[in-house]
């Protein structure tokens, strides 16, 4: 039975994607789109964990399954996908590139849901790559200059990330001697391996300095795609770290310092950069970057102090779920805002958007604040030296997020996001509202869903309102140069190769000239020799010359040393 459930969970989106190839089936696929993630959701909600199913014949011996942690990642991801799919169905209704979008969307869904179900490294990598690469089409969908640039940046980082991941997983498997993720996460891997894994997943997570792709991509993608990019796919990076890095098994002090530092920088640098952005969705993207900085703090602490992992992990899972729902809600809400034409409706939507914004910014008693408080507690088991700084960073992150949310809401009005014409607003509202409500209700539902893993959240302090207030006060203060790399990556590559090409061409030319010169000389030689030979009748004279030579050689051979004078040949012929 688990096998069938797995097949349904992965096969449904994959099958729908393949069905898109048939023009006749396209209508059906679009109608079925919101239901595509449901088998996975059902599996996560109602399946008994942990379980595994092995398929020796698949890839390199594929093992699929679900354990308690993966389940907690899968549930919010599936929810976000469902909501985004419902939105996408409306959003894309009149789009002439809808089929391409649907294909990429479904492939990315397959990858994203599938990677939570993978238990061995190659299979995980398969799904991870499927998700990452098919998202290229989502980012690029608009084909505008902005989308092209964002997509180029996106694919560059994805590639780098995939490669780091390939290396990290390869090394990890080499060191572990097993393909299973569980074994990898239980082995004290070498520092480079862990560094590669962290880098590979860090790209997806969007921590600095691997974040460059994230805000533009989230800004450029259509609303439903932004929602899943930010809500579901980023979490795949965190899941990857949780599943592969031997956190809690071994200490990696240096890496821990790096990750912690990176996390801190990320939290605030994202604010500085995001505050300069004008497009609301890009601002949201930076907010995601900032939020992932918080996650990085937890990971960094666990890297330094393995003992803290037991406490940190449940909090990180909760934070992931919280961010998934809230951020996806914000993105969908942006979409809803974009399709409103009447100012009153816009005001209503803005008000509605304040709820997830507040959740994210750390409104006391809501999931954001609870998560941060729980994290503070969990970090108590972490490195003591870092604890005050981490606590401070967490508090200030509330300020940062508040500022970004404020910027987002302002920019929403200043620079209304693009939306396709004739989109039916009501159909968009439902997923948005559902997600926002789910985010709000998360502290209440979480114990039911997560069971014992919800313990830290349930025990967390309600949180303080002052970061929110402070954030609101300085919301207009930030104006710092933001850095988006508009430099084409291909330009760099071509400057790399151009000298080699030129040098090769020059060497080739020189060789060709030399060869031609030699060939001219070589061609001139035989006729000259011919003339010389003819002039001296060399062939004929050769007879005489050869005769003499042979005589000399032959004579020399047969003349004994005692007989120094060789008599003329004929004299021997006497009677």
């Amino acid at each position, binding site marked *: 039975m688990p096998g069938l459930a797995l097949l349904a969970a992965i096969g449904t989106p994959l099958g729908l994607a393949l069905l898109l190839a048939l023009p006749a089936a396209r209508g059906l696929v679009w109608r079925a789109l919101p239901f595509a993630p449901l088998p996975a959701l059902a599996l996560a909600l109602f399946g008994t964990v942990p379980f595994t199913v092995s398929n020796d014949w698949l890839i390199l011996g594929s093992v699929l399954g679900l354990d308690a942690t993966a389940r907690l990642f899968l549930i919010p991801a599936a929810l976000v996908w469902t909501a985004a799919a419902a939105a996408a169905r409306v959003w894309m209704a009149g789009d002439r590139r809808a089929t391409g979008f649907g294909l990429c969307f479904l492939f990315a869904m397959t990858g994203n849901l599938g990677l939570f179900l993978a238990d061995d490294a190659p299979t995980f990598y398969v799904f991870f790559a499927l998700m990452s690469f098919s998202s290229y089409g989502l980012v690029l969908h608009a084909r505008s200059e902005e989308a092209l640039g964002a997509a180029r940046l996106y694919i560059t980082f994805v590639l780098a990330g995939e490669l780091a991941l390939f290396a990290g997983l390869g090394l990890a498997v080499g060191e572990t001697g097993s393909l299973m993720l569980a074994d990898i996460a239980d082995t004290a891997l070498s520092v480079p391996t862990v560094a590669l894994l962290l880098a590979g997943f860090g790209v997806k997570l969007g921590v600095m300095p691997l974040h460059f792709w994230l805000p533009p991509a989230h800004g450029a993608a259509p609303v439903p795609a932004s929602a899943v990019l930010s809500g579901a796919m980023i979490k795949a990076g965190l899941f990857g770290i949780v599943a592969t890095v031997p956190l809690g098994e071994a200490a990696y002090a240096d890496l821990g310092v790096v990750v912690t530092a990176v996390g801190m920088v990320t939290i605030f640098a994202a604010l500085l950069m995001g505050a300069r952005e004008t497009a609301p969705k890009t601002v949201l993207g930076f907010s995601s970057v900032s939020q992932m900085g918080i996650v990085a703090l937890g990971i960094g602490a666990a890297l330094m102090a393995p003992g803290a992992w037991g406490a940190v992990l449940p909090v990180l899972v909760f934070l992931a779920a919280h961010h998934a729902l809230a951020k996806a809600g914000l993105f969908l809400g942006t979409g809803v805002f974009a399709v409103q034409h009447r100012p009153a409706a816009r005001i209503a939507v803005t008000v509605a958007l304040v709820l997830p914004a507040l959740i994210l910014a750390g409104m006391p008693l809501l999931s954001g604040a609870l998560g941060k408080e729980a994290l503070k507690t969990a970090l108590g088991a972490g490195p003591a030296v870092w604890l005050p700084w981490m606590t401070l960073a967490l508090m200030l992150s509330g300020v940062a997020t508040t500022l970004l949310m404020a910027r987002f809401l302002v920019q929403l009005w200043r620079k209304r996001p693009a939306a396709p014409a004739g989109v039916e607003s009501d159909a968009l509202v439902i997923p948005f509202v559902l997600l926002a409500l789910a985010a709000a209700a998360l502290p209440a539902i979480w114990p039911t869903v997560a069971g014992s893993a919800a313990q830290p959240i349930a025990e967390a302090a309600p949180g303080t309102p002052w970061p929110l207030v402070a954030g609101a006060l300085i919301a207009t203060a930030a104006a710092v140069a933001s850095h988006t790399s508009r430099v084409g990556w291909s330009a760099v590559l071509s400057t790399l190769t151009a000298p080699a090409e030129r040098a090769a061409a020059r060497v080739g030319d020189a060789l060709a000239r030399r060869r031609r010169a030699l060939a001219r000389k070589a061609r001139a030689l*035989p006729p000259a020799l011919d003339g010389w030979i003819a002039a001296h009748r060399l062939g004929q004279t050769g007879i005489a010359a050869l005769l003499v030579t042979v005589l000399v050689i032959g*004579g*020399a051979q047969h003349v004994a040393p005692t007989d120094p004078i060789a008599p003329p040949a004929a004299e021997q012929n006497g009677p």
Partner: protein
Amino acid sequence: MPEFAPDPMTLAILLPLFGAIAAFLAPRAAPLIGLGAVGAMAAAIAAVGHAVAQAGTVTVPLGGWGAPLGIELRADGLALAMLGLTALIALAVGLGALSAFAGEAPADGQPMPRQRAFFWPLCLLLLTGMNGVYLSADLFNLYVMLEVISLAAVGLAVLGGTVAALRAGLAYMYASLLGALMVLLGVGFVYLQTGRLDFAGLAGAQGSPALSAAFALMLVGLALKAALFPLHFWLPEAHANATAPASALLSALVVKAGLYILLRLAEAGPFPGEAILTLLGVLGTGAVLWGGVQALRAERLKLLVAWSTVAQIGLIFVALARAGTEGLSDSWRAAALLILAHAVAKAGMFLAAGRIKDVIGHDRISELDRSAVRPALAQLAFALAAISLIGLPPSLGFIGKWSLMEGAMGAGNWHWIAVTMAGTLLSVAYFSRALTGFLRFDRVRAPLDEHRGWALADAPPVVLAGLAVGLGLAAGPILAVLDLGRPFGVTP
């Protein structure tokens, strides 16, 4: 055995001779007589083969004159292989000549065209000489047969009747006569030194300066006949200007007579020494390089093929000369294989070149690719022959080169390997000039005509060239034949 019961060896010499006389007397029936004579000769050779296979070496004294003076015929594996080769090529070239010289039969009372009238007598006379050379066991006989070959070959070379052919033929004749005279003088010296003319007598001869001089004379004479560089000057023009079947015979067989006699002399006598062999190798190297360069420059297809003969002959001398520890007792096999390979391939190639010239109307290499008419099969035959001459596997030429290089390596003579390699590269270069012309189409103005239907004339070159490539797979049996009767006194 009764006195007059002709034995197969005698028949192998006499049958073509009688055929030649008959064909001369009855020119209209010449092709029939000729093919019949060649067929009969082949049968006789088969009988010789049977005897050789039984006994190893077969000897027949003629006219009651035995050794040391007399006329004695002897056959062993090497001779048998050459006999078989000659029969094969004669048959193929004869068939090729049927169509090459076909045309309107003259009305009664009109003289036959010269080519049709004289080809068969000359060809059969040539075969008489060739077979005689192979089967002779004494120097005198060899000299006579060599002269027979010379006269027949000159006749064949001028058969085309053009000014160029006549000029080349005359030069050929002078070179050939001079070579023969040198051989004659050398033979005389040998007799005076040893009192014997048979090969067996030479074996025991003490080396002396006079004997060396005799061998030197013979060597130069034979080298002149075999066109060893730099005594090759007569060959390219003579072979290039003769008619195709004649060229095939000249290139495949006639030059081999000189080589064969050299081999036999080397087998029999204390001569040549290491130094002479090396000299031959150096000259062979010169031939390989010079022949190759000239072939690269040749403007006409047949001239290219003729120059390639010069280069290939040089390679055979290199094979002889690779010297080393084993000496000739080993290297003769490589030389023999190369002789066989070159003969089959070159006969096929000349016939193919003749076909190409006939069909296209000229054989200027630079304009081959302008022709809308492409004699596909002849071109295929040319390419196959080229494969063997270049020495690409699995051709017989490859096996020959392999033996050459294997021996040279065994003797540590890497320079001969280098020469072989250089020769191979040159041959690729010059043959690909022609092949490129065959395969290029973008300069053709008229619509292409690739399949003109196949003529009987296509069969001989294709078969010969195919054999040149395919016989490499039969190298084992060929070597077994060569070793019958243990030429050079060694067991393989």
